Structures are given as structure tokens and as C-alpha cells.
């Protein structure tokens, strides 16, 4: 296998696959969209071409049959129906598996025989009105036009413009009717050529052949082979993949137009609305890009290996740390040196610029994260017999690549969970006075230096008592702990490891790994996870992530002699601890922040030193975070820092990484959420403040 070709092929193939899946789902609501049909056809064709180069024979034959089916659809020889869409989608899954195998350096084995057979039969029109594979979906098949009876003649000769070209002629033939299913009409073929090359098809390589004016008769298969050999995946005019490269911001296409058409029959629909920041320019983009436009786009965008981007980010991280050390060193020089100060300031500004540029390089639209979701909802809703409309908002909101990469699994899980546990059956919904069809909304929202991703449904909500009972049954918490929990804390039990509310493990969710993994993923991405549920009305889970993972603004703090850091994003404000604001509530120390807000106290001395901080005996300052007031010895100052992961710590700990301070010391970065959670769990013994001196006075 040619590794170099493979390296080029895989990312492109995956993009094609994603696009094909999107397109296929769109065909459900818009079965007659020639544009989309042609796009899917091209995807299979290109996949096949590349696979040929790699000598992945099984992938070639698999994509060939799918290509074949699409070709019939594209030419309106067959009309698409639900079974076909199912088959194509499942076929795409098989290709995905095969790509995985290729990525592992293996030559893919044959696809599943039954499905292969089915696709071939569908393509042959034998099961055109056939049984649906995967549940009921109305087929809006119309009678196929009679198969055309023709032979194709292809010749290679110069065009009028003097460039080398391919010419095709059709001759009527009575004997061809038996193989009609495998043939294409000349009109279709012209269309293909146009789509492939636009108006300036490049020349063929074999000059001597081009002198031959005689046309030979070739079969369509042979023709395909010629095409594949000549252009393979490098066929010009395949502009789509190039436009969805990570560095391209304008990925929005003309989907809105298609999406605005009301879904006629099926239970899943997708609507996309761009965020207000993006101009409406994308709406006026012509549906079919000309080859010239594609060429232009290809020159301004660049496909870069993600590993290289990571390397650049790491190096910028080092630079940021060095900058911090420089600032610190110059700050401690004592005497003021104008030159040094100016240089330091300029270095500061330059490093900030580089940082934000690199940060932008790593940003990707949430579209990449969301595009798999319609399929997830479609499959799960059909399997569960539920009716769901999926609304996706903010596809063009950009976020760090690391978030996009890591969140794909959790997003799928959240949606499946919502479908499985949240959304009621249509009958139940009707009985509850709701619309039969449920609504799931996935949204990405840009908020200052954060991006929030929300998954919400209008289902039955989460019953906190039920959750608590389950948690106690499963030994996730003790009955004693359960009694202390607030409503919200009870609901949040679903994020605990080992918690799954379904007694019966289902295929959809409830595998016992799920919400805890979602939470852990969010934590690793330095994000925040929130859940809000209203019984009978629905549940909303929101995740907030820093805009970039490259730099982390931290606050340095001192606990006795040790220095720690806390991400600024988790800090609400800094407080002077006042003794008369400390209260005991159901075994916990709480702090009255203002008239109404009371928050648990998190004694860092007790947690990290096993020795509580003693108010009055040693200096104490408070850091107000969302879930607790963290008590420390002193707050030192802030810095833009870079996180270094630490892998030698136990799974359960208070840290989310380490950084190097301006003074060159390794400093552990505390995880405010984990600290607060610990106190909520072990409230009774976690915070005891020595206020006895007051009593003795």
C-alpha cells in the first residue's frame, strides 16, 4: 500500500463520507434534488477512485455498488425510497469501518454480504418497491422511466479550443436492453462530465491516442476505469472537500434553501440557522460552484496536518511561558531600565498576537461536531418509535479543535440519552397534551471568551427523587448523603460514575458509561457542565468551554508556603473573609456572600494539607467560585499561562494540570469544580473553622 497516497486519501475520504451522509439524510426530505443526488454519486465515485490506487479491492467493489445505485437514482432510472436511504446509510457505515482498517494499515476485508446483496438488488431495481429494512418509512417512489437502450462510444480527440478532450456518442442498440440497468444515458453522462470538469476538461496524458480519431466502442465499466486511472481522486472540479478544510471559515453552503422546505413525511428534520456574526453572503452563493471558483478557493486554503498545528501550539505555549519569565525577571531587576521595559512590552504584544493567530488556526466551526447528529437522531428515533424534530443552531460558531474532536462521542451520547430517557413516545406526549413530535435543540452560542453548547429537549424532565433512589440502590451514594442533597444536587447524580437510570441496558444509552464520561470529557476540556430540568417540560444540558485551549488565564494563590493556580474562568470574585458571615447549615460551613447568596465553604487547608485554615490565627482570603467559596492563605496575582497535562496523578484528584509560573516554578492548577464537589459529598467533615477563640473572649 502506498502510504503517502493513503495519508492523503484518508482525511479526504472521511470528509466525503461525512458529506455523503449529510446529503443522504437531506434526500429523505428532498428526494428529487438532483444536485444532492449528484453529490452523493460523486462522493462514491471519488472514494472508489482512491481505493483503486490503494488496491483496496473490497472497498472498490463496495463503493462501486453504491455508486451504481446512486447512478440509477441520479438518472431517475430508479426513484429513491426509505429502504434505499437506509441501505445507503448503512453502506456508508461499512465504508467508515473500511477506512478505519485502512488507517490501521490493513487492507479492508469484504463488506457484509447481506447488505451488499441488498444494495445490488436495489440498484438492479429488483427491490425498488421492496420491504423497508429498518422500520416504516413511506416510499414516495414514482414509476421509473423506461430503461434507455443505447451503446456508448467514447473517443479522445482535441476539442474546438485545441485542448485534449473526451467525446462520447450514443448509438441505438436493440440488444442492450438486458444490461440496461448498468448503463447510463448520454444526457446523464454529459451532465457527469460537466459536473466533473466544468467547461475546461484537462487533456489526456496519452498524446498518441489523441491522434486517433476513430472511436472505439467501450462498455461503461471500461469507461469508469479510464476515468479512475486518469484522474482518480485528483479529478479537478471536486471542490467540495477543499472548501471544508479546517482553515476555511466559509463552510456554510446553500443548505438553508433546501432546509426551508418543510419535511413532508419523515420524523427527522434538520434546520440550520447561522449565527448573526456570519453575513448573509452565504445565502446568495450559487448552488453549484464553477470549477474556476473552486480552483481559487483551493489556492487560498491549505490542508495542514493537525499534528503540525499542535506542534505550533505547543511551541507558542513555550513562548508564552518564556514571555512570563522575561516579564518576571525584568520586573525584579529593581532599577527601571526604559529600553528593557519597552522591549518587554513589545515582546508581550507580539506574543499575544502570535497566540491569538495560532488560536484562530485551531478554531473549527461547530458544524463538524453537529453534522453527525441528524443521523443519530434519525436512527435512534426510528428504533425507539419516537417522533423528533432536531433543530441545530450556531453551526458556524467556532471553537478549539480539541473540543470539536473530543466532544463528538459525548454529543452523540447526550442526544441518545435525551431520546431514550427524555423524549416520550408520541402517544404519551399526546396524552400529556404535548405535540406528538418532540423537539431536540442543539445550539452553539458564543459568549465572550467561552462557547456554550446546549442540548435541550421538551421531554419529561428528570425526576430527582427517582434519580436519588437509583443512586442509593446502586451504591453511588449512601442514604445518609442522599438525605442532605438539594434537588439540583440530586439531579446531578446522573453524572456520577456507575450511574444509569435504566434498569435494562439498552442499545441506545444506559450502558452505564455515559453521562459520567460526558462530564469527565468536559472537565478535561476545562469546561463546565450544567443541567437544568423541569418535570414534564424538558431537560437542558449545557456545556461551556473556553474559546481556546492554547492559553489559560490563571490566578496564583498561596496556601501556607505552597503556590497553586486556579483558572480565572472559574472565579467570580475575591473576598475578604468576615467571621460574622460564616454559618453552619446542615453540617456544612457556609458563607453568606450577600443578603441572599449562601455558598459552601471549601477549606483548601483541610483538603490539601489535612489541616484546616484557622481564621484569626493565619491570614485567609476567599475566592468565590460558582459552587463554593475557596479559602486560601493569600491571592497573589494573575497570568496568562499554558497548561501542561499531568498523567501521574490518580483519576480522582483536585488538579486539572500544571503550569510553569513566571518565576519558573511548576505550579499545580486546581480544579474548582472537583474541590466543591468533594465538599458537597463530605460536607460534614470538610470545613471546620476555628472560631472557638471568639467564644472564649
Amino acid at each position: 500500500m502506498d502510504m503517502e497516497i493513503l495519508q492523503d486519501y484518508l482525511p479526504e475520504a472521511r470528509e466525503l463520507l461525512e458529506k455523503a451522509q449529510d446529503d443522504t439524510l437531506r434526500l429523505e426530505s428532498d428526494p428529487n434534488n438532483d444536485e444532492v443526488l449528484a453529490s452523493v454519486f460523486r462522493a462514491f465515485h471519488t472514494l472508489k477512485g482512491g481505493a483503486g490506487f490503494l488496491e483496496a479491492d473490497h472497498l472498490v467493489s463496495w463503493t462501486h455498488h453504491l455508486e451504481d445505485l446512486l447512478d440509477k437514482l441520479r438518472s431517475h432510472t430508479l426513484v429513491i425510497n426509505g429502504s434505499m436511504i437506509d441501505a445507503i446509510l448503512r453502506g456508508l457505515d461499512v465504508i467508515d469501518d473500511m477506512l478505519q482498517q485502512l488507517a490501521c494499515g490493513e487492507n479492508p476485508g469484504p463488506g457484509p454480504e447481506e447488505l451488499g446483496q441488498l444494495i445490488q438488488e436495489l440498484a438492479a431495481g429488483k427491490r425498488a418497491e421492496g420491504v423497508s429494512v429498518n422500520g416504516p418509512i413511506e416510499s414516495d417512489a414514482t414509476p421509473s422511466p423506461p430503461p434507455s437502450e443505447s451503446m456508448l462510444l467514447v473517443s479522445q480527440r482535441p476539442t474546438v479550443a485545441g485542448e485534449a478532450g473526451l467525446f462520447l456518442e450514443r448509438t441505438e442498440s436493440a440488444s442492450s436492453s438486458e444490461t440496461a440497468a448498468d448503463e447510463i444515458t448520454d444526457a446523464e453522462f454529459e451532465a457527469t462530465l460537466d459536473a466533473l470538469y466544468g467547461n475546461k476538461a484537462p487533456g489526456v496524458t496519452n498524446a498518441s491516442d489523441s491522434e486517433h480519431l476513430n472511436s472505439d466502442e467501450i462498455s461503461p465499466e471500461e469507461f469508469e476505469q479510464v476515468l479512475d486511472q486518469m484522474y482518480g481522486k485528483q479529478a479537478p472540479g471536486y471542490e467540495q472537500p477543499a472548501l471544508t478544510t479546517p482553515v476555511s471559515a466559509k463552510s456554510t453552503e446553500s443548505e438553508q434553501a433546501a432546509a426551508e422546505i418543510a419535511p413532508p413525511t419523515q420524523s427527522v428534520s434538520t434546520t440550520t440557522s447561522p449565527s448573526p456574526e456570519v453575513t448573509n453572503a452565504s445565502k446568495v452563493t450559487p448552488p453549484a460552484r464553477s470549477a474556476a471558483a473552486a480552483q481559487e478557493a483551493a489556492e487560498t486554503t491549505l490542508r495542514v496536518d493537525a499534528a503540525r498545528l499542535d506542534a505550533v501550539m505547543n511551541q507558542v505555549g513555550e513562548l508564552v511561558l518564556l514571555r512570563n519569565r522575561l516579564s518576571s525577571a525584568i520586573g525584579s531587576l529593581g532599577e527601571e531600565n526604559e529600553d528593557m521595559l519597552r522591549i518587554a512590552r513589545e515582546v508581550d504584544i507580539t506574543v499575544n498576537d502570535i497566540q491569538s493567530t495560532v488560536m484562530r488556526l485551531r478554531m473549527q466551526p461547530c458544524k463538524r461536531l453537529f453534522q453527525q447528529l441528524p443521523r443519530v437522531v434519525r436512527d435512534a428515533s426510528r428504533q425507539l418509535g419516537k417522533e423528533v424534530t432536531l433543530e441545530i443552531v450556531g453551526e458556524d460558531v467556532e471553537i478549539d479543535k480539541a473540543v470539536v474532536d473530543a466532544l463528538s462521542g459525548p454529543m452523540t451520547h447526550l442526544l441518545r440519552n435525551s431520546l431514550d430517557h427524555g423524549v416520550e413516545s408520541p402517544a404519551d406526549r399526546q396524552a400529556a397534551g404535548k405535540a406528538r413530535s418532540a423537539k431536540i435543540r442543539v445550539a452553539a452560542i458564543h459568549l465572550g471568551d467561552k462557547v456554550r453548547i446546549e442540548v435541550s429537549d421538551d421531554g419529561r424532565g428528570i425526576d430527582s427523587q427517582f434519580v436519588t433512589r437509583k443512586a442509593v440502590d446502586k451504591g453511588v451514594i449512601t442514604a445518609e448523603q442522599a438525605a442532605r442533597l438539594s434537588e439540583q444536587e440530586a439531579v446531578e447524580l446522573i453524572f456520577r460514575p456507575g450511574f444509569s437510570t435504566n434498569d435494562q441496558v439498552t442499545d441506545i444509552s444506559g450502558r452505564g458509561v455515559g453521562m459520567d464520561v460526558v462530564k469527565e470529557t468536559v472537565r478535561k476540556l476545562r469546561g463546565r457542565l450544567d443541567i437544568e430540568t423541569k418535570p414534564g417540560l424538558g431537560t437542558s444540558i449545557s456545556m461551556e468551554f473556553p474559546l481556546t485551549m492554547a492559553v489559560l488565564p490563571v490566578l496564583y494563590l498561596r496556601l501556607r508556603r505552597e503556590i497553586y493556580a486556579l483558572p480565572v474562568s472559574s472565579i467570580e470574585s475575591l473576598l475578604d473573609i468576615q467571621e460574622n458571615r460564616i454559618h453552619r447549615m446542615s453540617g456544612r460551613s457556609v458563607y453568606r456572600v450577600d443578603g441572599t447568596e449562601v455558598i459552601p465553604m471549601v477549606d483548601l487547608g483541610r483538603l490539601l494539607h489535612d489541616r484546616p485554615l484557622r481564621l484569626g490565627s493565619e491570614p485567609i482570603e476567599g475566592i468565590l467560585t460558582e459552587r463554593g467559596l475557596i479559602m486560601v492563605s493569600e491571592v497573589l496575582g494573575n497570568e496568562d499561562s499554558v497548561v501542561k497535562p499531568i498523567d501521574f496523578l490518580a483519576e480522582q484528584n483536585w488538579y486539572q494540570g500544571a503550569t510553569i509560573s513566571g518565576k519558573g516554578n511548576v505550579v499545580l492548577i486546581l480544579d474548582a469544580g472537583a474541590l466543591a464537589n468533594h465538599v458537597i459529598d463530605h460536607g460534614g467533615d470538610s470545613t471546620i473553622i476555628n472560631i472557638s477563640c471568639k467564644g472564649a473572649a
Partner: protein
Amino acid sequence: MKAAPVFEAGSHRWWIIYDQDEHRVIDSNVYVIESNGQSIILDPGGFEIFPQVFAAMVEVIPPSSLKAAFVSHQDPDIASSLPLWHACNDKMEWYVPKLWEGFIRHYGALNAPLQNISDEGGDVMIGGRRLEFIPAHYLHSSANFHVYDPEAKILFSGDVGAALLPPGHDAWVDRRDKTGRAFEEHIKKAKYFHERWMPSNAAKKNWIERVSQLDIQHLCPQHGAIYSGDNVKRFLDWFDKINVGTGIN
């Protein structure tokens, strides 16, 4: 000299003023206890070092808070500054061993309000907290007292535990040393002092018996450095073993 906190719990604090700048007179530690805005000074020191003791003290407490002074025995390194303190604040009460009253007035404070402590000891209230005067006669003076603060768990032990340290010394015998090696190093500098200035093994034995009953976190001598935590027991064990009154053989 400089001041450092020994104990702090809300409005209840102990300070040590240590590391004298004048080296022609013996290096002494002065202690200040503050409780709810009132303070007492323990063994306020000699006439010669008064200016530096006073300057260091007013960094940690306002002079107007000073209500009393405690004098463990009659020596000049302990009480000869009396007239100067009295000039600054003539309301200050002086707690002195009854046996030494007439001697102490020789320092030039004929009119100062002296409060006698009888041989069996006594106590004083400062800012609502009780401090106990613990008899320590013949250690080394024939009428001698220590001060115990039961709340802070601190014993001011006068000349017991004293060590002769060079200028720039620390206020503590290393507290974090778990091995006891720091203590061993330190106690070498205390040995001669105890052998020479402490006259009575019987008084020593009796004192150890009584003091062992007390809960002591910090043992604060008037010369040298503070024994804290494990070092308190190490010192008592060491003191128990040593043969005193043997400086000249």
C-alpha cells in the same frame, strides 16, 4: 531587634522580640501577650536595650495597650528598664516576686506601682484571659516565677531552657525537624548555662514534675530560642537527665 508571632488566634496573640543589636550585654528575648486590645510584657529587659525593645514592640502592639509587665526575678537583664517604661506609661502595673520588691526599686522606680507575687504563685487577668504565675524558685533565682497561658498552651520559662546563641539567631529551635538532630545541636549551647546558673537538682526535679502536667505547645526561654511541639518533650527529658549546679568543679 525584631518581633515575630509565636501564637495567633483571633484577638489573642503572643509575640517574641529577639536577636538584640547590642552585643556588649547578654542577648535576651522579650515576650508580649495581647488579648482583646490589652497587653502585658514579660521580662521587659535591661536599661541598655530598652530603645530597641520598645521600637520593635510598637510594630506589633500600640504602646497604649500595655497594661502590665511581669518580672520573673531581680536580674538587670530582666528589670533594669523599669524606670524608662514607667516614664512612658506610669499606669502600668508591675508584677514582681515579693521577695525582690525592695531590690527591684533600686533600678530607679521608687513610685512605680509594683504588685507582689507571693512564693506560692498567683495569676493576672489580661483582656479577659487568665495567665498563671508558676513558681520556679532556685531556677535560678531564689524567688523566681514562670508564666503559663492555658489557652495558648505556652509556658514562658525564664532562664530554664536558656541558650547562648550568636547574633542573627532564629527565634525557634527548628520546628520542622522530625529527627531531633536540630534539637541536639541546639542543646549543646544550653548545657553550660544550666550547669552553671541552675543551683538545685531538687528544685529542678520538682519543677519538671509540675510542668509535665501542663499542656505545652511552646516553651519560651528568656535567652536563646523557643522549643515547640516535640522539642518541648525533648527539652524536659534532657533537663531531667542533666546534673545542675555543677558548672564549677
